[in-house]
């Protein structure tokens, strides 16, 4: 339609402060839930604008509306001062908007060049050689390194994200939306991404950065708009606000934050794992010679990029996956690899990664709370309904679960489901607690609650193994850390000597000493 270039255009001096994109009165309902409630947002040329908010605050919905993936119920979108209707991503792309969604919109069996040319160009014939040349040219122009002939499915997550960014840029976008782009990256990749974004913004690109991480928002963005429960809680120039103010705007009340105060009292070793090996999907080795020990009253964190054996480690310890070698001991008693009942009997409690798979959605809260210990609630061949209800009532109060005993679990929010799981596991006072991604997808309030419960268990004397992809969480809660890479323990450190840069190198499988100067 018109011939504007993506970046490096002549600055329009007079109009450069005029908003590129203006959203007014955007409203979107999903059933009873108002995801976006009369939202106002304006984006300037050449700024990095954060969209900050808790999970479910409506950030993603708002940007999906701008990118044509969701249709708004009401509201107006103006681009360069002109009202536009965006019915599909095709319209958005034509208006100069690009988006990198949280789940990458890439076709994995296809090459980078094929992904870049998808939906573009004219004519019948698909000229692969020209597509590869164009990909190479774009890659050089924007300084984003990718191999045009590589299959997307073979690339690392960080590389796939680069392809996504490049895809948007190659379509001459002027507004680039990134939805939680750092969630899947190791710290070094985050640095590289931020450098790219700064460079793009200097060239006149408008970048929208969706996040719920305060630190990132403060370090990279020029302005920030905070959303809370579908409404704009405020917009500010980033340098004018501090972490505390933003957190308050996000949550709507002052936050305390959970901190671990006392030093670990390093009791006797309760969980001892020695030379553990296990096979993962397709029978490939997922754990190789993993040894670790967790003492009573201690939290040992497991760091690593997802897919490096964490899932299998948790499954083996829970008894749902058979080890192929090595031994597991609880309190000096060796487990015989006989599955879940044995693990439960030995005093292992576990909170699995996928919380929706850990409950039976159609069963009531009360039944879900006793699923792991039905024997305790049996009278002859029948279940003692009254005891089950009383048990549920007690746990609902103790753990502040917002539900009634008879509500089906699937009607609960993620935070409340997690509370049900915590209640189910913790009510048995396990000696060993194996926890995986306990706060993923939870809002600030629920996250605080879960973390404080874990610390309470630590104070009680439980031995806790905490698997998390959230480095801040590990650094806040854990006493010691181990790093898994390709199924091996590649690092063991006290939390005092751990910093994100060093962890990042270990997680990327590079020896910290050897490459400490070459982080890029």
């Amino acid at each position, binding site marked *: 339609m018109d011939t504007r270039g993506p970046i490096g255009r002549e600055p329009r001096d007079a109009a450069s402060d005029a908003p590129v994109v203006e959203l007014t009165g955007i409203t979107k309902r999903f059933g009873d839930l108002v995801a976006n409630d009369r939202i106002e947002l304006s984006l300037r040329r050449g700024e990095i604008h954060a969209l900050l908010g808790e999970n479910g605050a409506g950030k993603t919905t708002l940007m999906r509306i701008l990118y044509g993936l969701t249709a708004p119920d009401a509201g107006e979108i103006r681009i360069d001062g002109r009202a536009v209707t965006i019915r599909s991503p095709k319209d958005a792309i034509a208006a100069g908007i690009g988006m990198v969604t949280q789940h990458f919109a890439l076709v994995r069996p*296809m090459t980078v060049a094929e992904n870049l040319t*998808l939906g573009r160009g004219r004519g019948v014939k698909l000229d692969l050689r020209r597509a590869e040349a164009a990909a190479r040219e774009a890659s050089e122009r924007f300084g984003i390194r990718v191999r045009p002939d590589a299959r997307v499915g073979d690339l690392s997550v960080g590389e796939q994200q680069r392809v996504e960014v490049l895809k948007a840029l190659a379509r001459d976008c002027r507004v680039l939306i990134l939805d939680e782009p750092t969630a899947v990256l190791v710290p070094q990749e985050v640095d590289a991404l931020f450098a790219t974004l700064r460079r793009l913004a200097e060239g006149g690109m408008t970048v929208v950065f969706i996040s719920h991480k305060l630190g990132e928002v403060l370090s990279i963005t020029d302005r920030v708009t905070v959303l809370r429960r579908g409404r704009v809680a405020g917009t500010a120039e980033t340098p004018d606000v501090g972490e505390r103010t933003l957190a308050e705007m996000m949550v709507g009340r002052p936050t305390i934050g959970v901190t671990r105060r006392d030093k670990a009292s390093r009791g006797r070793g309760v969980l001892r794992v020695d030379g553990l090996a296990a096979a993962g999907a397709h029978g490939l080795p997922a754990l190789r010679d993993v040894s670790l020990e967790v003492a009573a009253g201690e939290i040992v964190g497991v760091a690593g990029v997802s897919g490096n054996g964490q899932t299998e480690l948790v499954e083996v310890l829970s008894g749902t996956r058979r080890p192929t070698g090595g031994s597991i001991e609880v309190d000096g008693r060796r487990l015989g690899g006989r599955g879940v009942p044995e693990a439960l009997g030995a005093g292992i409690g576990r909170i699995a990664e996928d919380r929706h798979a850990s409950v039976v959605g159609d069963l009531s809260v009360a039944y879900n709370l006793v699923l792991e210990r039905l024997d305790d609630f049996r009278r002859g061949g029948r279940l003692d309904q009254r005891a089950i209800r009383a048990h549920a009532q007690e746990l609902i109060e103790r753990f502040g679960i917002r539900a009634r005993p008879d509500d089906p679990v699937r009607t609960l929010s993620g935070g409340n489901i997690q509370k049900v799981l915590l209640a189910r596991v913790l009510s048995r006072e396990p000696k060993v607690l194996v926890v995986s991604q306990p706060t993923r997808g939870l809002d600030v309030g629920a996250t605080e609650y879960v973390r404080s419960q874990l610390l309470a268990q630590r104070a009680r004397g439980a031995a806790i193994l905490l698997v998390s992809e959230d480095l801040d969480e590990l650094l806040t809660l854990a006493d010691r850390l181990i790093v898994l890479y390709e199924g091996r323990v590649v690092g063991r450190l006290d939390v005092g000597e751990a910093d994100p840069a060093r962890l990042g190198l270990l997680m990327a499988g590079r020896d910290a000493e050897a490459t400490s100067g070459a982080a890029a």
Partner: protein
Amino acid sequence: MTFLLDVLTATLRNATPLAFGTVGETYSERAGVLNLGIEGTMYAGAFFGFATAYWTGYLELGLLAAVVVGLLAGGLMGLLTVTLGANQHVSGLGLTLFLIGVSEFVNRLAFGAGQRLRKIEPYPVIDPLGLGGLTSQYALTYVAFLLVVPLAWWILMRTRFGLALRAVGENPEAADAAGINVFRTRYAALMIGGALMGLGGAFFTLAALGTFTLDIIAGRGWVCVALVIFGRWGIWRAVAGALLFSFVYSLQLRLRILPGWEGVPFELLLALPYLVVIVALALSGRNVAYPGAYLKPYRRA
């Protein structure tokens, strides 16, 4: 020698409807839709192709009718699975039952229940090279192997439409975000596929037999579904599978009348090509990567 040449000539002939069917099914499945309507679509193509040729006296109009019926059948499958998001297994089986039912109903209305066979003068065997034997085939066989199969491969792998079609079958979210109309692309794939299936069915009535009989397709549509998996959704491999099946099929037809084979029950011989397909599937069908969006309707969140 003549025996082998004879078998190979028959292989090409018998593989013709399978080539149409597998290519059509490959198009549907590469776009993410398992089209179990193939058996019924071939059946309807066979019947309406025959009926049109019978009534008008033009074989070309019969072919056209088969194409139109195939386009409509593909469109109906699209309505059920793409627009309404219905279960693909149920929709496909329903479509097959419906199309076979309609064909037999119209057959009875138009031609009566009597057993008198209605015949048309079918397409003759041609031999453009004048070599006899292997090159003496129906024109539709030439069209299938020299035009449709290479062209279908070229469109799927070397055109923008083909790239869009494959993307829609692998990751419709990605295709949508790239500005491709997922619905339109899937409809196009289903309708092109349906037209090819219709032509495959019409081969029986307009070329091979010159008449329509009940149960004329006899499960060849299902064979195509298996061959597409055998071919791992690649056109050439699927067609190679069709040739393999037809080779064993043609071989067993001739073995039956060979001296020394009278003792073998002919049912066993008849089952042979199907057994070969099952074994081939079992050997090559493990750990195959199905199209990413196989069986999944697409909805924007």
